[in-house]
């Protein structure tokens, strides 16, 4: 087990390095730099621009900058923003709680709804409930999230005026109720697509498990149905779900980028979007490193969880 763990963890390192190299090359390919806009300001002297370039280290060749950046990252220093000179680590740390709040809320919502619906449609296969749930989940998977967000804002914020249309809290009001009110619409939007996908997956897993011999044995023993479903079937159906949850993490992050932009939610997604627009190299590298680390760790945890819980899985 520990050998498997160590190997799995060691695999992460080249992966993360590969990701950062890919992003560095991409950034390099984008024409212009954070200072190119500065040069357009009337009255800016070329030597000033050169001076700022030197300060930011932009006069160095790419590979040198990359290694300097990598060295600093290993010491916990993500550098300073090239636009507003704020510390990238502080900026990310300041925004991470907002993104976590959003994604965790969406994750919980997906979990709470998808599991009962998935199980129930599997038990009552081909019933009206199952049919409705299947169609609803296709509808959920198909919905363009940014459009859904706009529709929810249009309906609940503009028409009914029940909920706020964006932000994390009203200015001067930071109460829990206020914060929750702001959380509802973005969390629902983010949850719906995942929720729909999970429901279908859980239904399929349950159907697969119910067909197994040990369920027939349990039935033959005369166990009551509730016990069979929860003690025997669901536990086994849960295993592949762990992988699914791990794989959903990148989707939550990509989804958060759009949702945070629409709901003006000051999180990592919005920060990433803004820094991509303003070509803030260090900030881009910081956010990419963070989100891809989350993704890779999510997959790792899913793998570990899977092999811990299911002795049938070969380790390695």
């Amino acid at each position, binding site marked *: 087990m520990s050998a498997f763990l160590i190997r799995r963890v060691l695999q992460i390192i080249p992966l993360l390095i590969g990701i950062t190299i890919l992003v560095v090359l991409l950034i390099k390919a984008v024409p*212009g730099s954070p200072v190119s806009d500065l040069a357009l300001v009337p009255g800016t002297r070329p030597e000033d621009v050169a001076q700022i370039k030197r300060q930011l280290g932009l006069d160095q060749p790419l590979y040198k900058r990359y290694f300097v950046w990598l060295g600093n990252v290993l010491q916990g220093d993500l550098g300073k923003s090239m636009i507003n000179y704020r510390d990238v680590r502080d900026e990310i740390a300041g925004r991470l709680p907002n993104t976590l709040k959003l994604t965790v809320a969406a994750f919980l919502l997906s979990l709470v709804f998808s599991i009962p619906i998935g199980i129930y449609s599997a038990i009552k296969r081909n019933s009206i409930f199952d049919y409705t749930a299947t169609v609803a989940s296709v509808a959920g*998977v198909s919905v363009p999230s940014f*459009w859904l967000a706009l529709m929810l804002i249009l309906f609940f914020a503009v028409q009914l005026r029940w909920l706020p249309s964006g932000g994390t809290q009203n200015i001067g009001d930071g109460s829990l109720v206020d914060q929750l009110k702001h959380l509802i619409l973005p969390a629902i939007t983010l949850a719906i697509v995942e929720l729909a996908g999970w429901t279908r997956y859980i239904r399929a897993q349950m159907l697969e498990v119910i067909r197994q011999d040990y369920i027939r044995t349990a039935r033959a023993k005369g166990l009551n149905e509730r016990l069979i479903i929860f003690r025997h079937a669901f536990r086994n159906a849960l295993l592949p779900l762990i992988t699914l949850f791990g794989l959903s993490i990148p989707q939550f992050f990509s989804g958060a980028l759009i949702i945070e932009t629409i709901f003006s939610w000051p999180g990592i997604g919005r920060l990433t979007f803004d820094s991509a627009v303003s070509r803030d190299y260090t900030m881009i590298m910081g956010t990419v490193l963070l989100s*891809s680390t989350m993704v890779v760790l999510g997959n790792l945890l899913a793998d570990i969880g899977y092999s811990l819980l299911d002795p049938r899985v070969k380790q390695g």
Partner: protein
Amino acid sequence: MISRGDEKRTAQRAGEATTIAGPSLAGADRGRLTRQKSPGYLARAWRRFRRNRLSVVAMFVFIIMVLFSYGAPLVSRYVTNQGFGDQNLQATFAPAGKTISAVQIGGPNSGKATTTKYLLGADELGRDVLTRLAYGGRISLTVSFLTLAIALTIGLLIGALAGYYGGWVDTVLMRLVDIFISVPGLFVLILVSTVLNNNKLITGTSFYRTNGWLILPFVIAVLSWTGISRLIRGEFLTIKNRDYVEAARVLGGSDGRIIFRHILPNVLPIIIVWATLAIPGLILTEAALSYLGFGVQIPTPSWGNMLTNSTQYFSRSPSLVVLPGAMIYITVMAVNLMGNGLRDALDPRLND
């Protein structure tokens, strides 16, 4: 003579048999067997597909959407009499069904007084929404189809190479796939889009000025090939050890011949199903990118960028927000339902 009802039931039974017994199903339909040859793979697949009513309906909805989109010039010419760029400031925010007489600016009737009926209303510049929806659909669908073609080409090549040769080729290629899967997708798409749309070699051409949106398929394809390459690799890993592949090798077949003539045809159903189920994601990605301003650029309409502008006029004219999104939604849902039916029909193994 078999009555209609009987026929349907037999077909149903035959369909059920396939999922379990495989190719021997035709035997279940004895009456038919005496009259004609056992139906081929496609005929059987079609029969299974037809059983799923919802998928059939979805297929027709999708066909209607495709006809509407690619018939955009016809819609423009015969139904709305408006081009997608024709503006009429007297018609701004015209509600659906309103008729407005005004002097036309732009288009073939520029400078003349015209009377136009805005069947689905007009946007903030007085452009006809129906016309723009049709042209927007044409662009959105074309972008998705082209992306699919590019992604399939890359994914097939990489998956086939990795699966067929194995060893270090496999390791290197699959680590590459891992990298592409782990980067935050939309974010990389934004960067790639900026790179390609600011490249002097591309933007300097006159072709770019009129057809700049054709860059977009290449942008989206950068991240869309990973799924199919993994799938193909897996299939190649199992198929390459089958006897018929071994036989082809013994007969002196080259690697290329074995890959393309012997293995690939056997993977085809999986590719078709994957391609169908990939289209919704591609439509959504195009729409999201265009909505954020990194995709199709105005004045060229796409379902995504029609939404960008309309959000500013949210309370004034909600239909400008509802309509393009509804088009995306209906199309994506139709393809999804159709794809599910296809998956069940072509390859029961791929079931969820």
